[in-house]
């Protein structure tokens, strides 16, 4: 297992599009150097678990909310990891609203277009039908190693929309891509 990076906290400013994310104060806003994040696959789940627990504290049933939020956040972080964006910062911001959590995940724009493609596929009409069709196809293909099929790489986000009721959106903010996830409380 790779150890967490010992890079000092980056002094780089946040990607410009984040400043106007919301008028309210986020419950958590964490930034990680991409280099440190990319050091180890397990960083995805460590970051997801920690931020989910933090954002769920002092809520009704924090264990349930932690489990759900970590599950969703982890899929998004895995996508960032697989997209292998260049140097810069990964910034995760979570706002608590009365009926939902708003999660924004900003990262440098990657060389490939994987993130845009995944979000586009996940937000097309009738995500449920798309997911079911694609999932059935996956079962008859052998498991892949490093290079996942295009569909399998996208399926994590698509499942969040199709089965878990998460709303996704993506926008560009200067030199960063910002993935927005809306997580209903129940």
């Amino acid at each position, binding site marked *: 297992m790779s150890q967490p990076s010992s890079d000092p906290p980056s002094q780089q400013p946040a990607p410009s599009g984040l400043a106007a994310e919301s008028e309210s104060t986020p419950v958590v806003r964490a930034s990680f150097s991409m280099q440190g994040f990319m050091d180890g696959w397990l960083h995805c789940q460590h970051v997801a678990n920690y931020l989910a627990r933090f954002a769920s504290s002092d809520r009704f049933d924090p264990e349930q909310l932690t489990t*759900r939020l970590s599950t969703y956040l982890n899929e998004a972080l895995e996508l960032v990891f697989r997209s292998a964006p260049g140097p810069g910062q990964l910034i995760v911001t979570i706002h608590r609203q009365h009926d939902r959590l708003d999660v924004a995940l900003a990262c440098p724009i990657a060389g490939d277009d994987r993130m845009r493609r995944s979000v586009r596929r996940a937000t097309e009409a009738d995500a449920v039908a798309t997911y079911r069709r694609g999932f059935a196809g996956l079962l*008859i293909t052998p498991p892949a190693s490093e290079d996942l099929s295009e569909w399998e790489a996208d399926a994590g986000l698509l499942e969040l929309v199709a089965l878990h009721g998460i709303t996704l959106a993506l926008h560009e903010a200067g030199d960063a891509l910002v993935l927005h996830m809306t997580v209903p409380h129940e």
Partner: protein
Amino acid sequence: MDPAQPYTVHYHENNQEVAIAGSLRPRDADDFAPVREVLVRVAAAIKGTLYLNLKRLRYCNHRAFVELARFLEHCRREHPELRLKLVISSVIPWAPIRFGYLTELFPNAIVEQYDRAFYPGQGVIESDQLIPVLRTQTNIVWDHERELLRKHGLRPGMRVADICCGIGDFAVLLHKEFKPEVIVAVDHSRPFLQYAIQVAREFGINDIEYQYGDAADLLLASNTFDFVTSRLSLQVFDQPELIMRELLRICKPGGRVYLTNEMMSHNYGYPRHESVSWTYAQTMKMFATLGMDLSIGPKMYSLLTDLGFEDVSMEQIGITNANTVVEDFARVIESWEEYITGELSTATGQPQAIVDRLKAGFKDHVYAIRSRRGFAIWPIFVASGRKPAPTRESPTR
């Protein structure tokens, strides 16, 4: 659990069960290979039903979900005669969604939501009608229990867990009286928890952590709490030993587990005691059909002793019309009557003649409470034990 290997996979041959627990978030097929290897090997070696125990699989990324689905597909092709039973818990919120979807695709697989089977009477137990019963009960028992809790070792500033907290009113009283450092209250009823949090908010209390959970498989860490309570709850489960093991696990070495339970057949009212006794004997039978043992109170001493608790202490609270506000006591019995001759009788299919006789018995009990010359009792058994310090031979998990 090892942070670099945050999941476990074990095969229990005796049960034909592969248990996967923890956080299963592989990066690729190579990462998943150790799990797949176990699954494929077991599927080839057994006949009948393969149990996949996923109750304690808290996290599973989509990649792992796909790999598990591929294993089901492998079984469908290679072992078409093999049945697969996926055992999950509703406490893990994504599990019913994902695995429910898988069973749509694989007719050879079924999902068993284990905690639904474990809480057979829950639909009856969590009815709105029961809330006033529980509140009144807590009120009159608390007068006796406040001092008993001290006697059994509860002190201010402790870390406390109240398992099967029901509507949460005991946790609120305990919070006010003992000012614990931490108090976590767990129940498997969402309506009760909603009610509990609403009451806590109304009282301006925001530092009780309410948690939806399965008492037989808690998400709480081991060796965490100084004082673990579970009141009037073992009696509503058919496998109380599973809960006892979890209470023991989350309790710190040197901490105490505190239990209360009833012996319903010892409820008594004089005069007309034959009618009263028949009614409670019949009520016990009705609860038993839902898997509940309303006579477990005196058995707690052996439950604690058998699990290795030290310094086991046990006594009885006798709620009587001589030591309790008569109208409060009468109201409890009247609310029992309403609930047992209504919802419980319907749920257990009692004929009208039995319902009428039950009603008469409850009225006779209330008569004994209110009568100037009558005597009525409702006994509650209280027990606690100290968790021993771990030894090298028996480490706690």
